[in-house]
């Protein structure tokens, strides 16, 4: 859980005057803390697409990747289930056109298969410091608000108890042919998200959404790290 190199990624972004990390940078920070993220390559030249796609393996997902881009779905910057080099290059062209010249690149990413989407995150409470969130992810995060928090540092028991606290806790059990989620792995991820909050003061907020259960294994599919947004006391 060393986080080696994570601080450098954050510092570089701050030096560039940025308030967010791109999805790719965000995942690099997570990966340095041992949190499982999608396998992916950032591609900045059209001719590199086939090679990157081959390394990741089909089918794959491609996304516009820039620190300035939010709402990728709404802007048509996510292309899924690409099955060959031709489709990948076509997607590259479409994404680049949609980015309107914003700096950044295109992420070539493994397509994680799983019907269950979770959310994890970190926010700073004025009174209690970094607090870790866990709950239902994807579109349900905003619709159901079925989430709970724990103050960092999380003990293992704290993280496990979060999984029993949300109303939708049954989603973690074995059901309809799906395996029970790996709760130990989920707990481990939550502990590590809290660790990032304790280690990196410049990280103001983190969203990991969705965290998809691929079988029983959780993988962070999209990530957003917000840096040092000025906060006022409540």
């Amino acid at each position, binding site marked *: 859980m060393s986080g080696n190199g994570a601080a450098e990624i954050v510092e570089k972004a701050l030096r560039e005057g940025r308030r967010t990390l791109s999805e790719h940078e965000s995942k690099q920070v997570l990966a340095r803390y041992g949190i499982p993220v999608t396998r992916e390559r950032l591609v900045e030249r059209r001719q590199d697409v086939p090679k990157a796609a081959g390394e990741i393996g089909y089918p794959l997902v491609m996304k516009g990747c820039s620190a300035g881009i939010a709402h990728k779905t709404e802007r048509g910057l996510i292309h899924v289930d690409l099955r060959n080099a031709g489709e990948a290059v076509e997607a590259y062209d479409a994404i680049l056109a949609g980015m309107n010249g914003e700096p950044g690149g295109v992420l070539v990413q493994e397509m994680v298969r799983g019907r269950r989407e979770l959310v994890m995150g970190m*926010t700073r409470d004025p*009174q209690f410091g970094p*607090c870790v969130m866990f709950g239902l992810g994807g579109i349900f995060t*905003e619709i159901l608000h079925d989430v709970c928090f724990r103050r960092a540092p999380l003990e293992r028991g704290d993280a496990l108890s979060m999984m029993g606290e949300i109303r939708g806790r049954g989603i973690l059990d074995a059901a309809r042919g799906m395996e029970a989620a790996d709760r130990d792995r989920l707990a481990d991820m939550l502990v590590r998200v809290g660790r990032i909050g304790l280690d990196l003061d410049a990280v103001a907020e983190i*969203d990991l959404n969705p965290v998809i259960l691929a079988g029983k294994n959780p993988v962070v599919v999209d990530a957003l790290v*917000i840096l040092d947004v000025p906060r*006022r006391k409540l």
Partner: protein
Amino acid sequence: MTNKVKDKAGRVPAADPFGTADFERIFHPRRIVVAGVSSEGFSYGGALLKSLQAMGFEGEILPVNPRGGTFSGLPVFPSVEEIPGSVDFAVIAVAAKAVPAVLEVCRLKGAAGAEIMSSGFSETGTPEGKALENEIREIAARGIRVIGPNCFGIYCPRSGLTYLPNPDLPRESGPVAFLSQSGGMASDFANAGKWMGLRFSKTVSYGNGADLREAELLRYFREDGETGVIALYIEGVGDGDAFFRELRAAARKKPVVVLKGGLSEAGGRSVASHTASMGGSGRIWRSILRQAGAVQVEDMTEMAEACLAFSLLPKRAVRGISVTGGGGALGIAACDAAESMGIAVPPLGDGVRKEVLALLPRSGASAANPIDVANPYTPPETLKRILGIAAREDGIDLQIMVFLLHHFKHIALTEGKPIAEVVPCAAFADSMADVVRETGKPVCIVLPNTKRGIEDLDIVALHARARQAFLERGLPVFDEIRNALRAVGHMNRYYGGKEGNP
């Protein structure tokens, strides 16, 4: 908090943030200064002094007013300096501007602590108020522990110290400690506890909390042998980190029941992520309290009922219950409430059921569990036998007995007697106490009263007397089945959680 140097584990180093306090002399003072008594009209100091006398405070009360004279039969000292010898504790109710000087003299006189009832400090939000409170803090740091300012002080049954307008709180001690940011809540809770059957070890209204406040008091009550359950009313905390650590440590040792005021979401925070937008103060607070292992309640009644259950019932989780009373609807309501709390109402086994049925009227009764006795006048001895038999069921850890006492009005009218004479309160209470003693399984009493109007004051009074009869025998009493089960649910979460099976 986040600026402090962290250790490798990311925690602020565990240097003890608290000073030392001689709590024994603060809660049980032998010589107490009351600064700010006035013989002309109402004064807070004067009101408190008279309350101390009414409570039968055994120590020496030393009133202070520059004009001297006498007050309520006691000689008044013109200043604290002129009091001979040393003092243990001080009640300060002088104008805010005069408080620091009085506090300093109390310190020099050897007082271990002082409660400052005066307002006009940080709660005003003015620079003058804040500066005055800082002065208090500086004096406190030199060796006198301060409760307040802007508070109602201490109520301690054993010594007779009492809150500001409360001359008539019980002197009987019990296991409940209470810490309250709000003086009004402190007073309300003490008064509600008085008739609901709570007995207190020590209670503190700490107001602005310039010096002593929630975290340090939690640590004290965690170790206090007289305290078995801690109740806490807070709106905000001084140091979130210290509060969390002390709350968690206290909750690992004894139940801590927390009523948090101000849980509505604060709007308008500038945040960029979904996580932060959902992490408003209310949601974070609830999560933090749960993480610390505290028992969360939504209002004062629920807090009192939880404290009553923790005070009087065995310290363990309850798997299943029996419910005995009259009326099918009540029984169904009991089952619904129990299920929502995760408490079983197991059917009685055949043998037990037949034995119970033999004691019941032939028609209208049911011995399934809930047990419907179908007769509100069932004699105490019969109820005792029914509960004694039902207790043999393995899955029943606790029994609930519902008395519908208002039905006795009919008998009172028929016999032309006051209702108090036709209800065998003491015999009912004795029979239930016998059940507990003979079966080793606790009994909760429920006394619903649908007749509370002005024409039924005799029934209201009857319920108060009945409640007292049960409480005197150590049996907790609740107004409704749902309230009893909610309190048991809190016990289950606390003791169940500790055993690792939520």
